[in-house]
């Protein structure tokens, strides 16, 4: 049974179709790359999966059941595009940021107890940040903050990890670290991952499936059958088709 199944999903912003008849099945352990130009529907589809939007038509199934009925949202770990746009002077430590994601596991009084503290320590160890527990989040570098956010999602032991353009603004070293850590998480815990990226060549080397978005529709490929050159050729052809239409 698929972990996540999208059945004929349609969604429009007022009159404008953003996602059209999307059918997609994501199996446990998949590393799926979402690629496509801006405005092709990637972020809208993520918002639909995350329950921020409701499909106009179609159904989202989580382990075979309607997601709207059975979904425990804390079983999805999410890093958004805006993750680094938080208030850098927010006075919180790494421990508090990571710990806050354990809200569902806290008792009647929403504080951290020693067993949750242990989970935070383990999650930070996973991203090589165990020595940074008491540091203020705003005092860390962009790459270190990104690793803290990976720890924040891993602390909940999620079934599905969604990463929406997580590498924007990171230098090459931090990008390498990011892929190394995600690779380790994938290998060690067999997590299912969806990642949106514009760096098509790199992501298609790490993912086992590539889902191409084009004007709200999706085309899914096995990564080993995906050809970057063919994709770029198709994209240019599409643009050539589109541009004259906009000129009228």
């Amino acid at each position, binding site marked *: 049974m698929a972990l996540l199944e999208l059945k004929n999903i349609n969604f429009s912003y007022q009159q404008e179709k953003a996602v059209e008849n999307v059918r997609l099945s994501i199996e446990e352990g998949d590393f799926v790359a979402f690629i496509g130009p801006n405005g092709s529907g990637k972020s809208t589809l993520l918002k639909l999966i995350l329950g921020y939007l409701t499909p106009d038509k179609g159904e989202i199934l989580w382990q075979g059941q309607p997601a709207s009925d059975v979904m425990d949202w804390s079983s999805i770990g999410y890093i958004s595009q805006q993750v680094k746009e938080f208030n850098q002077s*927010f006075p919180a430590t790494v421990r508090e940021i990571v710990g806050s994601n354990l809200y569902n596991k806290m008792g009647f009084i929403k504080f951290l107890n020693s067993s949750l503290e242990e989970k935070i320590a383990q999650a930070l160890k996973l991203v090589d940040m165990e020595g940074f527990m008491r540091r203020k989040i705003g005092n860390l570098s962009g790459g270190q903050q990104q690793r803290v956010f990976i720890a924040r999602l891993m602390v909940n032991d999620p079934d599905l990890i969604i990463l929406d353009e997580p590498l924007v603004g990171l230098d090459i070293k931090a990008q390498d670290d990011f892929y190394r850590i995600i690779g380790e998480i994938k290998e060690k815990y067999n997590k299912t991952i969806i990642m949106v990226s514009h760096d098509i060549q790199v992501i298609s080397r790490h993912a086992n499936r590539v889902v191409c978005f084009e004007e709200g529709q999706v085309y899914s490929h096995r990564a080993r059958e995906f050809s970057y050159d063919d994709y770029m050729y198709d994209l240019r052809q599409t643009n050539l088709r589109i541009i004259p239409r906009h000129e009228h």
Partner: protein
Amino acid sequence: MDFLSYTFMRRALIAGNMVGVIAPLVGVFLNLRRLSLIGHTLSHVALAGVAIGLFIGVFPLYMALIISIIAALAIEKLRKDYQDYAELSLAIILAAGLGLATILISAARQSAGIHSYLFGSISLVGTRDIYMILPLAFIILAVIIKYYYGFFYLAFNENEARLAGVPVKALNIVFMVVVALTISLAIRVVGTLLIASLITIPVAAGMQLAWSFKSTIWLSLIYSLIAVNSGLIYSFYYDLAPGGTIIITGVLLLLATMLIKYLYQKFFRPR
């Protein structure tokens, strides 16, 4: 310590310290969510509540409580419906509150008592005020402790809080009610015009030195309690409105903290 021999001063200190605890506690979350304008808005609406109370002859603080809770819920709704113009809707509610208050105060022709509601009063904190402030302050304290990490998450990232299982909608409503209650309870001590400052200034001072979220809360509490107690004592000895003495003490503490921090960073910070 001769001020402690006066019953009214003991009452003022009890009320002041309760307000001095809850105002910065609520303030930390409110300010970090960049919603401090809500404090200003609700305090002006609370003044309208006081004016309605004076006009119709109902205990003004009860009316302030009711009106500010209604306004807080309306603000929460507007904040969601008009996300891009949230500040505009706040400014409108603030103006409406102040306008209504002005009309009712002038229509009542009985504005002698209004001074104490504008600037606070130590001599007018009555037993009835204490009975209202004590239980409600404990409820506010209990709610904040119970949902501590929920409010923390809302302050850090409201959008993603839902994915961690935080009941965002319900907690936002609870939070707005807590803000409205805090403001209504603080009216007697600091007055409607200065409540928002008691919510803001100790937090601003606390944030200067904080090394974590928890420390921000503790430092804000310390600043607030110093400001409230010394402000009340100045108010007693120099016969000044406590709202002013409390807030000016808070501002002086903030300036001193900023100066000390600046000097430390300039001369002592390891290079």
